[in-house]
């Protein structure tokens, strides 16, 4: 059995988590492959929740697969698709089945996904969701009713070190940290200085919050430009786009892995933050190469 994620967060070890993106459809074989490949190499496997507002197999479903296979799942929960009743019900279900790490997110807008005409919910926002999980942890639902069987979630959230303007983002982050989180997983970050500033800001509010830098490898100059334009919260600097553009044809993925590993090494050596969260969506099977290149296995 894996070490509980909350215990990993308490150590001084460099914590590593990776993301697993559910498929569109009921076939879970690929997800199982990724889980088997990664579960013993990382401290937690983080499962996206209808990522980019594209309807998929549920986060909680993949979390259960991870749990059944002895891994340590981190349940991503966005506020886009569920009202407060559904959020609470899913949290109770998750906890009852051993899924006890939750990452509280706002969620991308419905407009960026594949069901653009749907009604987006956002009954709560991410700060309110964190408060909600604390309420469940204390044995009460959001309306103040007693729970028959409380929960004990390890709560995380996200932050955007590269935002521009940054200040409004940090003020919101301050509310999240004050609401009480054990870890923050950043959005994709490519500049160590931005990460340093971000970490310092969080430490000044609460020194105990663990920060995992979001690592999203980019595998080509065109992909980078596309991501800058279309992926909310992602800002890839020009120097990385240039480096990718200079890579010989057919070596984009290797170059992307090299750049990601370099960043991870730098973060670890300089102890910029407490760990990394690797998001290589669609290429989960190549995550071990990043871990190896970064000297994490």
């Amino acid at each position: 059995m894996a070490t509980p994620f909350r215990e990993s967060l308490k150590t001084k070890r460099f914590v590593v988590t990776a993301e697993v993106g559910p498929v569109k459809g009921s076939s879970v074989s690929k997800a199982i492959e990724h889980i088997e490949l990664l579960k013993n190499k990382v401290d937690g496997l983080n499962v996206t929740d209808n990522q980019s507002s594209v309807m998929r197999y549920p986060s909680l479903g993949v979390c259960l697969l991870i749990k059944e296979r002895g891994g340590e799942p981190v349940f991503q929960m966005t506020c886009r698709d569920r009202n407060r009743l559904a959020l609470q019900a899913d949290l109770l279900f998750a906890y009852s089945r051993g899924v006890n790490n939750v990452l509280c997110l706002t969620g991308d807008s419905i407009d960026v996904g594949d069901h653009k005409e749907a009604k987006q919910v956002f009954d709560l926002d991410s700060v309110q969701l964190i408060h909600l999980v604390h309420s469940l942890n204390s044995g009460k639902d959001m309306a103040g009713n007693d729970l028959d069987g409380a929960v004990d979630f390890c709560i995380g959230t996200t932050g955007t070190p590269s935002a521009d303007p940054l200040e409004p983002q940090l003020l919101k982050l301050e509310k999240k940290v004050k609401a009480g989180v054990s870890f923050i997983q950043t959005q994709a970050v490519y500049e160590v200085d931005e990460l340093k500033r971000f970490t310092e800001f969080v430490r000044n509010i609460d020194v105990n919050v663990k920060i995992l830098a979001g690592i999203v490898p980019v595998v080509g100059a065109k992909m980078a430009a596309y991501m800058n334009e279309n992926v909310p919260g992602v800002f890839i600097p020009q120097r990385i786009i240039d480096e990718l553009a200079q890579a010989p044809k057919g070596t984009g993925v290797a170059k992307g892995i090299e750049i990601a590993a370099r960043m991870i090494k730098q973060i670890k050596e300089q102890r910029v933050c407490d760990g990394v969260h690797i998001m290589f969506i669609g290429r989960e099977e190549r995550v071990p190469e990043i871990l190896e290149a970064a000297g994490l296995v």
Partner: protein
Amino acid sequence: MIIAERKPIEEIRRAIAPYRKILVAGCGTCVTVCWAGGEKEVAILGSQLRLARGAEGNGLVTLEATVDRQCEKEMVEELRDKVNDVEAVLSLACGSGVQTMAELFEDKPVFPAVNTTFIGMPEKEGLWVEMCGACGDCFLDRTGGICPVVRCAKGLLNGPCGGTRRGGKCEIDAEKDCAWVLIYRRLEKQGRLDLMREYRSPKNYRAVKRPGRVQAVKA
């Protein structure tokens, strides 16, 4: 005020296809100001419909009238003779006006000729922007007079989402400002940034019990 947009002419033509004589009814308040359903738009729509039907050899007679406020029964009552004289009514008022008309003249089919879109204001000539979600629980005093309930694409109450684009634009539209960046800048100007640190608890959706009903209290 209430903002509306004229429906596509083809949709309107399909709706009134079975009728030979209709009343095209405008409203002199909000939809006049936003160029969707005032006297001028009534005249234009009336002639468009007559011309199109004339070209088909299936003539249409239109009566035309615009009242000051189509959401008030007393004012719509003035149209009774005209309504009695037609088979159907095409209303260019907001949804409230259409329903007032339909309630007053229950035996006549009433068709909306506009889509009511939001409560807003003109930003510049010919451009209207949404300002208020009529949520029944106003907290504009805490947000520098900028409403995140409707001006944030997600209606977030505690600050911006992580999707904000460079320069403080909205995740879903590079042309639109992130409401929370606007709020931040406004509060910064006022020296009230502490309000950005204030936790706002989940919205009470019972603030307006739908369907809404407000009883005035005499002072």
